[in-house]
């Protein structure tokens, strides 16, 4: 099933959910509204012709120029009906949700795919996106008392942490800024 068909299925079921579509790229995706994310994701997981049962990754993206943050969801279908057969067919799909940079809130998908739990904690930790209705939204990689979200483009590296100096003679300026 090509991404266009999947996009049309979503369009037919949720006419107002889609904000933008990028279908002829290396990684086709559909950008949907944050408020319809959970129902679209549940549809993608449960629809008999789609059955995206494996959430591969949630990548948080900083769109500094537009003052937005985004989350990219990559999913895949793993057939489980004829268990034991060699599986060589699959389909994959990707969603994107864009949220406001100053108050970034996206509904959690932990209730749809349990794998989303840790991925969302990571996105919260490193990018500062808050996931509403997440069962346990805490930092996962950085210490609990860490300040700021390192993957944001305007993140300033702290000069000390609990008395440990963190500057180097090489400087820590990112060549992009």
């Amino acid at each position, binding site marked *: 099933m090509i991404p266009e068909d999947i996009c049309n299925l979503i369009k037919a079921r949720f006419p107002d959910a889609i904000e933008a579509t990028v279908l002829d790229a*290396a990684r086709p995706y559909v950008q949907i509204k944050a408020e319809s994310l959970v129902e679209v994701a549940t549809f993608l997981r449960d629809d008999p012709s789609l059955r995206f049962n494996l959430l591969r990754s949630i*990548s*948080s993206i900083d769109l500094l120029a537009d003052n937005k943050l985004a989350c990219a969801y*990559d999913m895949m279908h793993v057939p489980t009906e004829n268990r034991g057969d060699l599986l060589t067919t699959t389909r994959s799909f990707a969603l994107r949700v864009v949220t406001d940079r100053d108050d970034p809130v996206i509904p959690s998908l932990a209730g749809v795919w349990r794998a989303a739990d840790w991925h969302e904690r990571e996105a919260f930790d490193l990018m500062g996106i808050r996931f509403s209705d997440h069962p346990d939204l805490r930092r996962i990689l950085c210490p609990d008392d860490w300040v700021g979200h390192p993957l944001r483009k305007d993140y300033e590296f702290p000069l000390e942490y609990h008395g440990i100096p963190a500057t180097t003679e090489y400087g820590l300026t990112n060549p992009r800024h």
Partner: protein
Amino acid sequence: MAETTFESTPDLLLDHDRVEQGDLQTEELLVNMGPQHPSTHGVLRIVLRTDGEMVLEAEPHIGYLHRCAEKIGESVQPYQYIPYTDRMDYIAGMNNNQAFAIAIERLCGVEVPERAKRIRVIMAELNRIASHLVALGTYGLDMGAFTPFTWCFREREMILDLFEAACGARLTYSYITVGGVHDDLPDGWVERCEEFLDFFEPKIVDYNNLLSFNHIFVKRTATVGVITAEDALAFGLTGAALRATGVRWDLRKVTPYDGYEDYDFDIPIGQDGGIDGVPRGVVTGDCWSRYYVRILEMTQSVRIMRQALKRLEEGPIEAKKVKGIKLPADEVYVEIENPRGQLGFYVQGDGSAIPARVKARGPSFCNLAITSHTCRDILLADVPAIIGSLDVVLGEVDR
């Protein structure tokens, strides 16, 4: 004193003054397993809520090795980022190099020469064997068997020698680069590799005799930590952990990369005990299945390598003009089959030579997420059995 004999003990009933009530009562206790613990395979801390020997709840705490490798990816060019990828999963450096290289190649439309693809497959499979040897050896160690560890590391040492001959490094190779491989194979390397395969293949039988079918080992791992296929997929488990649940799923077959479609090999899966030499008592998806899938995969890796070595032809090993290549304003998400599962890289370009975003989807990170679900109402001694069978590398969990 002389009056106290064994005959007098029947008078000592439970309501006697000398018997203290409550000796055997237990209470809930929070126990830190790690961050420094031999069977956490790295710096992993698991907080266990225990009641006597029972573990009621286990919660992994990660991040002790966090270096924010993804941030580094946003400040260096892709070929400079290759050395950071093999410091994520330092047991399988080649496979990590390969994943990132393929992601950049797909993004920029770089065509990899035929010989480079063959060398990549040889190195990836060799590293898969080396990685599985570490997994099997240390798993035996967790279960109290020391000898398999020394045997596994003896063979792994030979693989590291082969790697050293090809690229100079024994652990962090940075050998597979964007557009091909870094160096051509030295003279006589192919023969040495074939010699190793001839030596190694019979050793797998030894591992089976020594550890796989060892009665104590089977008792410790069979029916322990059973994961169903549905749970595995819901939690995003991939690799041997998913195949052990009976799903014949491998990206080398499903979405072939670097010419895997040319090779003839099987995908082993876990199955119930009693047939095909699998010991009685084994259940699909338990710790023993996850362990044994790795043993079977090593045989398949040898098969793939023999074919690749035979088809190795002279030719260029690197695509032209890949250093300093401009990344188009586009994005890719590429996954390959790492020894531990599906390793994915999401790379976003913005027209410059430096990526705007690099995100690594580590199989260890996703596989470890199921711990708190599986380590519930089990015996304390089963916790190392479950963690070890998932075969996580903490360098990649924390990135």
